[in-house]
C-alpha cells in the first residue's frame, strides 16, 4: 500500500490560516489501512484544528467526511453537493487525492494533510517499511524477492557497500541492510554464485526519471 505520515499541525494550520470553514476529507484506501487518513484521523485532526482556533479566538468550522477512495473520479464526484460550501478542502489521502480533487473542482482549493512517503507494508502494528520504489522494471527475482533499488540506501545493484553493521544499514539502526539479507539468503540456499555476476547498469526510463508515467490498457479503455 501507499504509506503516509500526518503533516505537522503547524504546517496544516499555516495552509488553512485564512479559512473560516474547511472540509477534511479522509480516504478509505491505503491511508486508512496505514492509520493516517481514515475517519478516525479525520476526527482527530478536525478536533485539533477546532481547539487551535478556539485558543486563538478565531472562528473556524471544520466538517468531516471520508471518501471510498480519492483516486477515482466517481468517488471524488460525491463531494460535489458540498465542496463549494468551504473556504478550502484538506485531503488526508496520499498525494493522489488532493490532485484528483483539484482536477474535479478547479474552483476550490485543496491542501494535503499528509506526506506521502513510500510503497510498503506494516512489519508490525504501527511500523511500516518501504518495499518498492516503483521503478517500473522489477528486478527482485535476481535478489530472491528483495529489492535493492528500494531498500538499499544507495540503490546498489552490486552491494553490499561496506558500511553495514550487524545487518543494519549505515544510515540507521532501524533499517535492515538489504544486501546483508540478500547475501545471507543466497548463502543459506547455497546459491551465492548468483551474486558473482555483475549486474549491469539499470535502465531508468521506466522509472520517474523517464518523465511522468501513464499506464494504458487498451482492452479496458471504453470507447466514446
Amino acid at each position: 500500500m501507499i504509506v503516509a505520515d500526518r503533516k505537522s499541525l503547524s504546517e496544516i494550520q499555516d495552509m488553512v490560516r485564512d479559512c473560516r470553514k474547511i472540509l477534511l476529507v479522509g480516504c478509505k484506501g491505503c491511508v486508512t489501512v496505514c492509520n493516517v487518513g481514515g475517519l478516525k484521523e479525520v476526527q482527530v485532526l478536525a478536533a485539533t484544528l477546532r481547539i487551535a482556533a478556539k485558543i486563538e479566538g478565531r472562528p473556524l468550522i471544520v466538517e468531516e467526511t471520508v471518501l471510498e477512495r480519492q483516486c477515482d473520479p466517481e468517488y471524488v464526484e460525491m463531494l460535489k453537493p458540498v465542496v463549494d460550501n468551504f473556504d478550502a478542502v484538506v485531503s488526508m489521502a496520499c498525494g493522489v487525492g488532493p490532485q484528483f480533487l483539484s482536477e474535479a473542482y478547479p474552483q476550490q482549493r485543496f491542501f494535503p494533510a499528509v506526506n506521502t512517503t513510500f510503497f510498503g507494508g506494516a512489519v508490525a502494528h504501527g511500523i511500516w517499511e518501504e518495499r518498492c520504489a516503483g521503478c517500473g522494471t522489477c528486478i527482485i527475482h535476481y535478489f530472491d524477492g528483495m529489492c535493492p533499488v528500494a531498500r538499499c540506501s544507495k540503490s546498489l545493484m552490486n552491494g553490499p557497500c561496506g558500511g553495514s553493521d550487524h545487518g543494519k544499514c549505515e544510515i540507521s539502526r532501524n533499517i535492515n541492510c538489504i544486501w546483508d539479507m540478500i547475501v545471507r539468503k543466497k548463502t543459506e540456499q547455497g546459491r551465492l554464485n548468483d551474486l558473482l555476476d555483475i549486474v549491469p547498469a539499470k535502465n531508468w526510463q521506466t522509472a520517474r526519471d523517464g518523465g511522468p508515467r501513464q499506464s494504458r490498457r487498451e482492452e479496458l479503455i471504453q470507447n466514446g
Partner: protein
Amino acid sequence: MSDAFEPTIIAFCCKYCAYAAADLAGSMRLSYPANIKISQVPCTGRVDIVHLLKAIEDGADGVYVAGCMEGDCHFVSGNLKALKRVTCVKKTLAELGMEPERVEMFNLSSAMGPRFAEIAIEMTDRIRKLGPSPVRRQPQPEAAAE
C-alpha cells in the same frame, strides 16, 4: 485569572478499578474537590484520542484517564494503550501551545480509595495553578452561519 477559578475536570475511569476506588473514597467519606466529574468506561482501553480531544475542545480545563495498575488490567493491556494515547494527546496539546499537564494518566486499584481522592486533589490543584483552559479563555466567536 482570579482566585475564584474553579476548573472543570473530566475523569475517564475504568469501572474495574478507578471507578470502584472512587466509590470506596465515598464509603470512606474522604473529601476531594467537586471539580472532578467521572465518565465511566469499561476499560481505559476504550478511551480514544478523539474522546480526550473532544473534552479539550468542549472546554475541559483538565482531563484524566484512570485505569488499573500496570499489569493488572482486567483486559490484559487496555491501560497501557490508554497511556500511549494520553501521551499522544499531550504532544498535540504542546503543539497547540497548551499545557500538556492538563491531560494525565493515572493507575490505581479498586482498593485505593484514598489514592483516588489524592489524585482528584492533585489534579484540581494542578489545573487551578494553570488557570482556565485557553480554549475557554478567549471570547468565543459566534459560529459562522451555514
